[in-house]
């Protein structure tokens, strides 16, 4: 979060924090090159293991603090899947838990100063959103056959309106992965960029830096909230799409 305030004048590079860099020098980025993406994703995996595996190794009837958190996370996502997708959606709970827990940890790790936020990249969120999109679409077709198309044919509407609504529904269906992915990446990127901009102001204002610092504190608090909410939104939208695939009839 430092290092970008130039020695003189107001030079802020709020986007520099998002640059993908090779971890061990060099400047070629092959698909297999270990980069800061690799590092921060690996840290997310470490956090997941610490919380959900090491934290629960006691299998205590009366849980320790960490086990409590793990159980809360489990219960939170499980209930969300059950409530939104229905009983038959529970089968897909591990997939949604995987997405949720990864996004939560990626978002929170990104809040550490100097960190790299993997979920601020559209490549990452779009991959996840497209995976969800193809998964639920294929699942819907396999489960319901041609009946899956009734998702677009709203039988509650007047007959004359149905073709128009069907067109709108189809468009909105295919826009889903776009909104699904850009919502998360955009939120992460915007928050971090804003913090960086304020940090740049703080660098040149001298004593007056208290104002940008206060602003950074406020935005940071907001970002903590956003980090969780965006993971929640991503997971719950996945549940909604899953419900549509399992029960396409309105």
């Amino acid at each position, binding site marked *: 979060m430092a290092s970008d305030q130039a020695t003189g004048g107001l030079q802020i590079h709020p986007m520099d924090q998002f640059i993908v860099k090779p971890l061990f020098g060099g400047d070629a*980025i*092959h*698909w297999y090159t270990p980069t800061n993406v690799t590092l921060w994703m690996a840290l997310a*995996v470490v956090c*997941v293991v610490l919380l959900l595996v090491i934290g*629960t190794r006691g299998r205590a009837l009366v849980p320790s603090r960490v086990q409590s958190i*793990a159980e809360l996370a489990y219960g939170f996502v499980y209930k969300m899947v059950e409530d939104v997708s229905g009983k038959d959606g529970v089968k897909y709970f591990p997939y949604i838990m995987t997405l949720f827990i990864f996004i939560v940890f990626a978002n929170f790790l990104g809040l550490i100063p100097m960190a790299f936020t993997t979920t601020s990249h559209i*490549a990452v969120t779009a*991959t996840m959103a497209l995976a969800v999109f193809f998964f639920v679409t294929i699942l819907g077709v396999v489960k319901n056959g041609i009946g899956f198309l009734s998702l677009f044919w709203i039988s509650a509407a007047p007959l004359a309106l149905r073709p128009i609504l069907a067109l709108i529904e189809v468009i909105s269906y295919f826009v889903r992965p776009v909104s699904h992915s850009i919502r998360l990446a955009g939120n992460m990127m915007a928050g971090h960029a804003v913090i960086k901009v304020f940090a740049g102001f703080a660098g040149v204002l001298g004593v007056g830096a208290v104002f940008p610092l206060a602003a950074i504190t406020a935005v940071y608090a907001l970002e903590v909230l956003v980090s969780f909410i965006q993971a929640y939104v991503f997971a719950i939208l996945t549940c909604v799409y899953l419900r549509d695939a399992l029960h396409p009839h309105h």
Partner: protein
Amino acid sequence: MATDTKAAEPVGMPQLDFATFPNQIFWLVVTLVVIYFVLSRIALPRIAAVLAERQGTISNDITAADELRLKAQEAERAYEKALSDARAEAQRIVAATKAEIKADLAAATARADAEISARAAEAEKQIAEIRENAMESVTIVARATAGELVAALGFQADEAAVTAAVDAKVKG
């Protein structure tokens, strides 16, 4: 997949530097697969088992508590029944004892009454005897006195006559 590009110049958004996409997507897939296996093989079954066990323990405890409560109620009923039984028994014993004592008392009273009346009769007899004896003594003394008086007056007392006179007087 093999993309061979320079780390892009930081122009605009690094998010739109498509050269880094294969790298990010590759590592994302690796990460998600690792997390998925960690969750589905270890973490989720374990947490589910712990939660189920806790649920089972709680419902078992609640059932056990219900059973114990029923038992306690039963015991209380039994206790109360025993208490009232004991109370009734005690009252019965008290009544029986009272009746027995009353009977004993009546018998003793009767016995005492009989004894008293027997003694009274005896005493009356003795008194009558004593009175009789006293009368006789008085008669004897009177005869003797009368004889002596007659003699003192210088008369030869006719004992038979004196006796008759005294007897007549005493009976008088």
